[in-house]
């Protein structure tokens, strides 16, 4: 097994779907990234441009995001490609209106690593935007539907980036038509949850050196969206269900 570090996404995946964790992280059979995730990456690129260069026009930022999306989706069979592409201009526009008042960030896509004693591998990740002078971290999430509060998985993720408890960590959720920024609460507790899951992952992985063994102790929830599309076939091939 080639696991040398944890990430918030892998730890959240372990919590959400141990079988998919086994497939992607233990058997190393990464499933295709869909349109929603690629749109998120693309919108962040456009917004980063607009924040770092205040003189950049909205059209230029949207263009950056769209080109990024088209590049990432170029080989994707995801049927939602056009639908999600259509949401990009609105998301970039709203995100710039929401975040430009903070000023130019001191860092974007910054690497964060945390290696608590006793944990075999570090937990690493990349924050979206940091304003160091203000002690502020903001992660941008794109979604079709506006949540009423920060999602737990996102809270765990951003808690890693807010390396000190007094860091003001926020999440900005952008839909094609709405945008809202929430302040993250209980940073330490969510980071502790991340650590607990990482310990559980290491305990889990210590059960065997044989990747195939983990197929015997997990089973996919085929009603979950994790197993939609081509993953359904993969589940059958590996678990025979």
């Amino acid at each position, binding site marked *: 097994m080639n696991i040398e570090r944890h990430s918030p996404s892998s730890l959240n995946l372990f919590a959400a779907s141990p079988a998919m964790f086994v497939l992607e992280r233990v058997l190393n059979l990464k499933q295709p990234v869909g349109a929603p995730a690629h749109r998120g990456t693309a919108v962040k690129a456009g917004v980063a441009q607009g924040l770092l260069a205040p003189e950049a026009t909205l059209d230029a930022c949207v263009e950056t995001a769209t080109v990024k999306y088209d590049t990432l989706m170029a080989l994707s069979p995801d049927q939602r490609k056009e639908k999600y592409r259509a949401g990009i201009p609105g998301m970039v526009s709203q995100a710039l209106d929401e975040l430009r008042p903070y000023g130019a960030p001191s860092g974007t896509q910054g690497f964060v690593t945390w290696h*608590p004693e006793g944990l075999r591998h570090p937990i690493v990740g990349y924050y979206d935007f940091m304003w160091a*002078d*203000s002690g*502020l971290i903001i992660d941008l999430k794109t979604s079709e539907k506006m949540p009423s509060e920060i999602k737990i998985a996102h*809270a765990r993720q951003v808690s890693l980036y807010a390396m000190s*408890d*007094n860091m*003001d960590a926020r999440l900005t959720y952008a839909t094609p038509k709405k945008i809202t920024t929430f302040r993250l*609460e*209980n940073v330490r507790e969510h980071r502790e949850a991340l650590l607990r899951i990482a310990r559980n992952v290491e305990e889990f992985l210590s059960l065997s050196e044989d990747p195939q063994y983990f197929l015997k102790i997990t089973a996919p929830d085929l009603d979950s969206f994790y197993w939609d599309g081509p993953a359904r076939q993969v589940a059958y091939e590996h678990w025979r269900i």
Partner: protein
Amino acid sequence: MSNVFGFSTEPTPASDFLPIIKIDARAGKIFRMDRVAGADGFFNEPVEITQSFKALADFENIETGWIDFAAGSAPSFALVPMGTRIPERPSERHKNGIRFMLKLAKECGGDKPIREVAGTSKAFLSGIEAVYKLYQAGKAANPGKLPVITVTKWTPVKSGSGAQTSTNYHPTFAIVAWAPRGDLAFVPKTAAATTTQSSSSPAGSSPPASPPSTGSTQVKAPMADADSDFG
């Protein structure tokens, strides 16, 4: 009476304080302990900074638990991050104590302003407890910042009776400003304790009454802040 640190700070005879900043409750003084090269090697030279004391206090990362300041040997710490379960008392010599880092202001910091302070005396703990409550009250209004504290007065408090009477001076701290952390990087020293004795360990866990909320408070961009001398 339990306090914010999880143990009592009622007045009792004082104990010791330790490096790197020493707050001497028996004298009502604060010293910066500098390492100085002498003929027989390095030694600690106390530099009194009572009057000029001003520091950026890392109250985000207070460690709490047990400390033994044994004379003639290195102190023994069994500390965990504040807010987690206090570990088992290592020995009868260990006393409840806390430790945190601070950055001294230019007027009292010398050439090594980033320091550590630890203590077990009730005078010290009660003083820190009071200013910590001020910090908690002001924290939300000062996101991303730490409090700048000074000592505004020392209050003599007698304890014991007869020949056993002693007087300690309880410091009253005040928050005079808030400033970004800057280069005051927290250096965790209690990872092992946290790992084995904090809530990370199922056996030693003290689960909260309810799961932590993630946050549903909507916020907007903050207003510009004034400069401070901690940069």
